[in-house]
């Protein structure tokens, strides 16, 4: 066989499969004549080497003819110790072992979260005994970004939720002449359930993701280790201010969402049911108990702790690559929303038990 042209990495793709498909003449001796090859690089030399080895494997004797300047290349390739066709295996785990592995990982995550909670408690307790060092500046900064800047979003969303609820409610109740019940529906739904849930979801998406990404990136660049090295607890400077900020912010946002949600419903009540705002608000004030309102606002701090802790924890779990920071951020948001809803259901069960 005679080879010619340039056997370089950008050209060689075309010749690659050729030798395999060739109908080799019968006989044992094969001459690979590459003396007409103008340019050769390592990939070319490797292809030549591989072809020769393949032929020898099938019991032929191969004579290679090369230009002298290409011999060094072939020597490099031959002595590299790389064997032909490293098998491309990607072991796919079986179903059972996959389930087991996931379960094991999840259990580990849960354990990690619990121990993170414990570490946080210890740090907080230590901050108590020593001179109480609340980092006001940082807390206020987080209140600003997580709360004040989230206010327009939370307000607008809850306003529209109120509008939608009132529309659905009035379509449902008006045929029975019970349009006034829209006030009960919206008031109860917003104040007790939707406002805290909605704000929690907004804050988890806005700030929780940011917390996970910030801490993850800080871990990647070694800032977390630097903090530890100068004797500052990363939990104290990074996690506690964020928890404190969300503890302040989430109840306030919830109250704002309450007000805007009811206001949205009020607008609809006026246009759809011709109910004056005074009448509407009076109905809300009469029918909604203070406990309903307090339960709703009271859930907010619980959600705040869940979001801050879960998201910071996920940030700390990030490894040293960009991929894992992204993955951890996703997990942080999904997990904190999940736990928020679980906590919400839990509160519901408790409130039923105690008849609140």
């Amino acid at each position, binding site marked *: 066989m005679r080879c010619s042209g340039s056997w370089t990495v950008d050209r060689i793709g075309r010749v690659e499969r050729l030798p395999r498909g060739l109908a080799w003449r019968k006989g044992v001796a094969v001459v690979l004549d590459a003396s007409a090859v103008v340019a050769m690089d390592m990939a070319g030399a490797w292809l030549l080497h591989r072809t020769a080895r393949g032929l020898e494997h099938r019991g032929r004797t191969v004579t290679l003819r090369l230009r002298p300047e290409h011999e*060094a290349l072939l020597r490099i390739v031959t002595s590299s110790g790389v064997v032909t066709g490293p098998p491309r295996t990607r072991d796919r785990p079986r179903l059972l072992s996959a389930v087991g592995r996931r379960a094991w990982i999840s259990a580990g995550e849960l354990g990690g979260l619990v121990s993170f909670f414990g570490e946080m408690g210890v740090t907080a307790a230590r901050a108590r005994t020593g001179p109480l060092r609340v980092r006001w500046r940082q807390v206020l900064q987080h209140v600003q970004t997580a709360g004040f800047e989230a206010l327009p979003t939370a307000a607008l969303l809850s306003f529209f939720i109120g509008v939608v609820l009132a529309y659905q409610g009035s379509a449902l109740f008006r045929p029975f002449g019970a349009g006034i019940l829209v006030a009960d529906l919206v008031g109860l739904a917003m104040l007790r359930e939707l406002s805290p849930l909605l704000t929690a979801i907004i804050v988890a998406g806005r700030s929780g993701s940011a917390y996970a990404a910030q801490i993850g990136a800080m871990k990647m660049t070694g800032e977390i280790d630097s903090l530890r090295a100068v004797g500052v607890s990363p939990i104290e400077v990074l996690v506690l201010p964020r928890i404190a900020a969300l503890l302040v912010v989430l109840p306030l946002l919830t109250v704002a969402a309450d007000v805007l949600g009811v206001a949205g419903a009020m607008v609809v009540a006026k246009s759809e049911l011709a109910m004056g705002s005074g009448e509407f608000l009076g109905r809300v004030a009469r029918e909604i108990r203070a406990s309903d309102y307090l339960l709703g606002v009271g859930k907010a701090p619980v959600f705040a702790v869940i979001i801050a802790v879960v998201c910071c924890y996920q940030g700390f779990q990030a490894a040293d690559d960009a991929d894992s920071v992204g993955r951890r951020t996703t997990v942080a948001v999904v997990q904190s929303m999940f736990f928020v809803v679980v906590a919400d259901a839990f509160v519901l069960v408790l409130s039923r038990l105690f008849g609140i």
Partner: protein
Amino acid sequence: MTASITSTPEIVIAIRDVHTRLGGVVIHDGVTLDVYRGRIFALAGPSGCGKTLLLREALALHVPDSGSIRVLGRDVVGIGDEEALELRQRCGVVFERAALFSSLTVAENVALPLRERTRLGRTLLDEVAALKIALVGLPPSAGPKYPSQLSGGMRRRAALARAIALDPELLFLDEPSAGLDPASGREFEELVRHLNELLGLTVFVVTRDLGLLWNVADHVAFLGEGRVVAAGTMQEVSRSDDPMVRAYFYRARSEPAGAQG
């Protein structure tokens, strides 16, 4: 290839009177230097003197204000995107922080330029990648590992394997031994020398590492105050009367890392 180091070697990088300003600050004030084929050329100088910038300019990643830069016979000042791509394909680069793609394994990192720029089949792709990994002295077991699982020295080697994936004629190294311990630094130097001899690679290396300057570089240029203040072999540069060069090497040579000049 290797034997072609004769009396008048071909100039592969010719930099003529390059001026560059960055944010109003003059960085290059008439830099002129030549890099010969098959040689290892080292650019030394204090930090902030524009060494890396010059490397970026040679790769057409930054455009100088005036002057001409010819790389592999092509004018890179005002080069088109298409041509620049083609030129960069003939050059391998290892940046200072190795910059391996963290979501890919070492083998995938090395195979990436091959996959993007050539039409090799999968097995051949894997084999060529394995070849390069072996060539930079990494064990085959390093292939399926992720960069975060490797030590700094191994990561640097992996980055080098990726840089030579397409068999470049010209290899650019930016501070290759920064952040390496002396032993791995020395091993890396030997590797660069080895590749230079083996493949006839021309190497353009930006460095502050004295071991590299003394033991590996064929030619050294010292950049200071925007121009080349001394050039030649390391012996010649170290004997320069320029106060900047003296200050740099006098203090630096007393360090244990300074090699047996």
